[in-house]
């Protein structure tokens, strides 16, 4: 099989009997064994082969789904029953959940073969995958560079052909930015579309799981299986519709596409975005400028809210019931202090500290409450824009992947990587990143954003764009 085959191509191969799910799985496991990017934390060879055998039987008996027998990897933030879930942290190095995340269970039910768990920034906190206890991940396009984060392992694994698709989570850009850096397509669904049950929480009001793959069609196939109301997640949306349950529908003609003016300053990828615009104009769509006036406040707002929620979400990691526990604690205080000091990495500690500060008496109003008010203003900005336009076209990140270590000394500069993704997260909107060219030999992505629950619209535009361009078919091997 071609190394960068899409899910659709693999589906045809399985259905035609060109190869079995077992053969396909073995093929990917062999490639993972030779991986030089450190994309995986844990490879589940035994589980994958058993699932592939079951998938072959299911296909033979004719009760397969469009996903049966297709391999995939899960970001190591999704709990998998019987298989370690580390969240990229020493804290959970030996944690094995007794349950599957809803996303894992749904894909498993559909017959997907889980190859293993992908590397990530610790507790999904980071934009470069340098914050993993299990080591940094290399960008398959240039190994000295980062793959983006926090779903860096998933993005690198897809780009390197170690899996045709992977799950990711996006709190402030953690699916879209690594997708952009690694030249793949990644979708962050509307907040509430995909159940958060069994997904280790970072910032509960922002976290959203989604698929990462080579193109919009594959992403659509996966999201149709991942999405849907889950009574175990009170914040999941109780809706009848599942996006792309019958594939991506035809895109409405003559869409009005907005260009947020605040996003188009000092970009390294201005020419690439102009080209996207030209392609979409050729498809009959029109462009207008829109304003998102509170954009500047988005990054600080995001870091206050995400930090505040994270600071209490991570309180459960206390060394008492599960997770890392220090040796020979002398007292309860000592148990807490050392277990948490040893178990958490630097960035996680930084966010717990800032988040705790933002919620403290005397600071709550000035930080947390203020941030919530600005969040509402940002959401209102988008709502007004969508009164005028159907879709927004924006950069995913300011530029291509940067070199490992380039921003680690400057957390604020690192946080600015998220400037185009966090406003969308704060507003809870669906957005995707699709490859749209190269800068300095590295892939860059364009971001499409829609109103709540309009995943089909942006997936349609992306599919149409990918029908007339070939950026999404480029591979690191061909580039070298």
């Amino acid at each position: 099989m071609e190394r960068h085959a899409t899910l659709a191509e693999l589906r045809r191969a399985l259905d035609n009997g060109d190869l079995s799910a077992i053969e396909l799985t073995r093929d990917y496991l062999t490639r993972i064994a030779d991986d030089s990017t450190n994309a995986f934390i844990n490879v589940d060879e035994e589980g994958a082969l058993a699932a592939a055998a079951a998938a072959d039987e299911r296909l033979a008996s004719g009760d397969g789904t469009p996903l049966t027998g297709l391999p995939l990897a899960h970001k190591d933030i999704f709990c998998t029953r019987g298989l370690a879930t580390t969240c990229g942290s020493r804290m959970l190095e030996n944690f094995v959940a007794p349950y599957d995340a809803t996303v894992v269970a749904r894909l498993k039910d559909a017959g997907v073969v889980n190859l293993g768990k992908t590397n990530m920034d610790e507790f999904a906190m980071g934009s470069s995958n340098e914050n993993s206890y299990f080591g940094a991940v290399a960008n398959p396009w240039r190994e000295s560079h980062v793959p983006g984060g926090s779903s860096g392992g998933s993005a690198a694994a897809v780009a390197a052909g170690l899996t045709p698709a992977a799950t990711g989570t996006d709190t402030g850009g953690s699916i879209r930015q690594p997708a952009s850096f690694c030249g793949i397509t990644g979708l962050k669904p509307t907040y509430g579309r995909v159940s958060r049950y069994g997904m280790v929480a970072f910032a509960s009001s922002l976290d959203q799981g989604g698929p990462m793959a080579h193109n919009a069609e594959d992403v659509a196939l996966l999201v149709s299986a991942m999405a849907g109301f889950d009574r175990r997640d009170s914040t999941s949306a109780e809706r009848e519709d599942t996006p792309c349950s019958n594939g991506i529908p035809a895109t409405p003609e003559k869409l009005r596409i907005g260009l947020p003016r605040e996003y188009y300053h000092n970009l390294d990828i201005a020419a690439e975005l102009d080209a996207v615009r030209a392609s979409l104009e050729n498809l009959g769509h029109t462009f207008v400028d829109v304003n998102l006036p509170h954009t500047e406040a988005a990054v600080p707002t995001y870091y206050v809210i995400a930090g505040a929620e994270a600071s209490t979400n991570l309180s459960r990691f206390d060394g008492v019931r599960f997770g890392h526990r220090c040796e020979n604690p002398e007292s309860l205080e000592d148990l807490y202090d050392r277990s948490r000091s040893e178990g958490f990495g630097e960035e996680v500690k930084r966010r717990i500290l800032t988040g705790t500060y933002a919620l403290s008496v005397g600071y709550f109003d000035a930080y947390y409450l203020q941030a919530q008010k600005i969040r509402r203003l940002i959401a209102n900005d988008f709502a007004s824009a969508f009164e005028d336009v159907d879709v927004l076209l924006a950069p995913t990140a300011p530029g291509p992947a940067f070199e490992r270590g380039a921003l680690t000394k400057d957390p604020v500069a690192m946080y600015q990587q998220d400037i185009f993704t966090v406003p969308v997260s704060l507003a809870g909107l669906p957005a995707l990143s699709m490859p749209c060219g190269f800068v300095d030999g590295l892939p860059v992505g364009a971001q499409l954003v829609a109103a709540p629950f309009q995943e089909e619209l942006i997936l349609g535009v992306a599919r149409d764009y990918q029908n007339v361009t070939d950026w999404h078919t480029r591979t690191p091997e061909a580039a070298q």
Partner: protein
Amino acid sequence: MSWEPVIGLEVHVQLATRSKIFSGASTAFGAEPNAQACAVDLGLPGVLPVLNEDVVRMAIKFGLAIGAEINLDSIFDRKNYFYPDLPKGYQISQFQTPVVGRGSITVHLDDGTTREVGITRAHLEEDAGKSVHDMFPGQTGIDLNRTGTPLLEVVSEPDLRTAAEAAAYFRQMHTLVRYLKICDGNLAEGSMRCDANVSVRPAGSNDLGERTEIKNINSFRFVERAINFEIERHIDVLESGGTIERETRQYDPDRDETRPMRGKEESEDYRYFPDPDLLPLSIDQAFVDAIAADMPELPEARRSRYREAGLSDYDAGWLADDPDVATYFDAVLVQSGDAKQSANWVMGELAAHLNKAETDISAAPVTPDQLSQLIARVVDGTLSSKTAKTLFEALWQQEGEVDALIDSLGLAQMSDSGELERIVDEVLAANPGQLEELKSGKDKLLGFFVGQVMKATQGKANPQQVNELIRAKL
């Protein structure tokens, strides 16, 4: 100088749901440690809370019973602190917006007066687990069975002025939640606990003194004792020129004193904020209306009904306070139609037997059916008060129909006045000396003769009838 205590109570009512407030684990008491703690209760990574609708229903029921405003929109907050028996590192509670707003409850005091006590709010929250300090030497065990048990925390206004009033309020709350069937009321198992906020001020002052909080009191008696101790302590400190420190104290029943738990300098910042895992709780008015339409008779209404049936305040209160007693009493009353007789029997013979046997009224061997038939036989003169008691004892000890037992035990009063008259004659004849004295006006001896006749008839005579017969003979 004389001092006026000012007291407010926070009562934690454990709601009688089958499963927990945010998980499907059972709430049954007494299971093996940690046998009833699921992934949500353990706070495992990635799991999420889902609100139990029954809990909301019960809170609204309580709110309606105290005439409170029901907040159709309320919010669950996280109260953050580290403790080994708090698995998530935060407790989910309602801080800013509770589901039940301001209401009030009528408290009946021992002297027959009543007091209206304001209730500030009642909010829903999850209970924590238990730290077990006496099971493993030098170590602490954690039992998370109680984790996530639903609690309704009822916060009173500082309207109480004596320890006795506070205890009466706690009792009244106990009565009410049992009427509403939202709590089993089992104090020994911790189903109701209270924290008491106590301060004193110079009598006549409108300012409030510095207060202390006594935590986790779980009996009516201890509430009164703990508060009395604390009032005395405050007065002693103030009168000797000291000042009261705001602090949390615990009551030690063995030594009958309160002791500080943690002081102000360690006062915690709980960093409350809305729990992003739970949407704001939005209730339809129709949901509230349906609960309102299905409210049981409340203690106050029952008390009034009993008073209107001719019972004294004391009897009405005694019978209405415990919903099981009241239910039993109502069943007797409906059939016997005689409120006074019914009250006398339930409060007298039945209560004494239950007390002695340490049996709950719902398990009484004498059914309301049997008791009302017994009363009917007293009213129609078949039984004397003495034979009625014999019959009650028989019904307590064995199975059987009331009338059949009256027959088989020969308990019916003598209805043949000819025979009774013969016995009266015999008794008068056998005691000529006493008869002379009676005739000469020593009325006290009437009782002696009635007693002798009753003895001769083995209690089967009607004392009233005997009385009349003797008078007629004089």
